[in-house]
């Protein structure tokens, strides 16, 4: 395993037969107009997926934690999409997004809203990817938050209520501080996971329209396997790795703190 890491450092200095080219690969990649788009899209995707993909499961978990009925059913159902193979989930949504007979435009029609072109327009394509990815990964976050919520001692809520704190203030002053660390850890994990997004653009849009959904991982794949340029691909991989290692390092620190508590 350690070898692999070493390899990934060397690889970007080798073009296929193993020629030393220095920073040539980096220059090629930088000059690609898709390069900036890929980083911007990846950042935008992570940002959106972070906001939607963390807030939604947290809210769901808070609501679920209050319910006393149908708990097993709800927990089962929310985890269902996680068990689908991602390729299936993505292709399923491709059908839902279909501009003609797709489920989503039909639903918009029922409430008398104009249809959207989802994957085919530069303005909606990226958010469409975020929706798929949130849908299929939601369950994990919800269940982990739920477990964290259950460890909050009830008397904290009790005393907050005696102090006259309303519902939202109790969430803000008790629930969130008590789950702060797990929230942070999950946020970081999400950043690391979403920065590597590949399957959604690969299957749904092929990076288009007009590079609106090219991501770094997708570009890396294209370089290595469509253009046959492993050097360029590795250069991208290395850049991605450096960015992600920063997040991982922070994650490690926080989880250590958490373990010590």
């Amino acid at each position: 395993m350690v070898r692999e890491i070493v390899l990934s450092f060397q690889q970007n200095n080798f073009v296929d037969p193993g020629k030393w080219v220095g920073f040539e690969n980096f220059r090629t990649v930088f000059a690609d107009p898709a390069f900036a788009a890929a980083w911007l899209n990846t950042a935008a995707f992570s940002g959106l997926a972070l906001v939607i993909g963390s807030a939604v499961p947290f809210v769901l978990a808070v609501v679920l934690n209050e319910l006393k009925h149908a708990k097993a059913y709800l927990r089962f159902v929310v985890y269902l999409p996680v068990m689908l193979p991602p390729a299936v989930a993505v292709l399923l949504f491709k059908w839902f997004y279909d501009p003609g007979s797709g489920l989503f435009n039909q639903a918009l029609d029922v409430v008398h809203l104009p249809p959207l072109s989802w994957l085919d327009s530069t303005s909606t394509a990226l958010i469409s990817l975020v929706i798929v990815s949130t849908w299929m990964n939601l369950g994990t976050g919800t269940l982990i938050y739920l477990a964290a919520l259950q460890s909050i001692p009830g008397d904290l809520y009790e005393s907050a209520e005696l102090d006259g704190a309303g519902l939202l203030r109790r969430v803000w002053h008790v629930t969130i501080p008590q789950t702060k660390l797990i929230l942070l850890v999950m946020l970081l994990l999400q950043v690391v996971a979403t920065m590597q997004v590949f399957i959604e653009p690969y299957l749904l849009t092929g990076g288009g329209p007009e590079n609106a959904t090219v991501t770094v991982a997708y570009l890396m794949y294209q370089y290595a396997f469509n253009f046959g340029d492993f050097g360029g691909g590795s250069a991208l991989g290395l850049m991605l790795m450096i960015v992600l290692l920063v997040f991982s390092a922070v994650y490690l620190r926080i989880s250590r703190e958490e373990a010590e508590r």
Partner: protein
Amino acid sequence: MRTLVSPLALRTPRGRIVYWTVLTVTVICFTGAFVFPLYWMVTGALKSPDELAQIPPSFFPKSFDFHVYADAWEQLQLGVFLKNTALYAGGAWLFTLAVDVTAAYALSKLRPVLGKLVLGAMLATLMIPPMVLLLPTYLVAKDLPILHADLLNTPWAIWLPAAANGFFVFLLKRFFDSIPKELLEAAEIDGASPLRILWSIVLPVSRPIIGVVSILSVVTVWKDFVWPLLVLPETDKMSISVGIASLSAQMPQNVLIASLVIASLPTILVFFVFQRSIMAGLTAGSLKG
């Protein structure tokens, strides 16, 4: 146990109304968001291409014609894909258990020199995102160091990387650590070798965690897309996810949807049967929980 809302507030008439409203809304929304797409998929496959394109769509298919499923099975050679995937997942499972259990046992109980360092290195691999290791691992699989074997288009390309899973080693080690020392020492005094202790004492008491690791490893391999896409480019070697995706463009829509249903059945079934263990594994994977 008391949560955000106090039980007193729930017992008032207003509290009851709010509670039941929230409950109903949640149940309806969850069903709509997470079950309905699956329902739509299963029934969508039963519709004829005309009915699929029809606006507005029909909620129930007009006829229950299971022929599409048979079509999908034949046209997409789903049988081959499923067999491949089962082979990959099964092999990966065996290798995962063989490698990770022995590794965790060695680290936990035999305490070799540098054991801490090895464990640290394994944990470090968890920190490195899989996507950036994609190219180096691919090159390793293409030309295995020392042996110079080309693993592409062979099951080994799936089995070997799947077996080297630092997370599973870590989970197993934590569980093994909790097995009382006295038990093992007693066996040692009776003259049992380390391997025998592993086989007849450690494994039987570790059944729950081994179950969790087994399910996770099979499901992970079954769901994986990117890696099999790279290392199994030959059509008749593809795993089911890759196979369906690569043939999706040429298929009539109802056949494609039918094949999606077939592809997701195994993991959904596994979830129905083992949901308890899967959820336990999930929270064991999180830090606290």
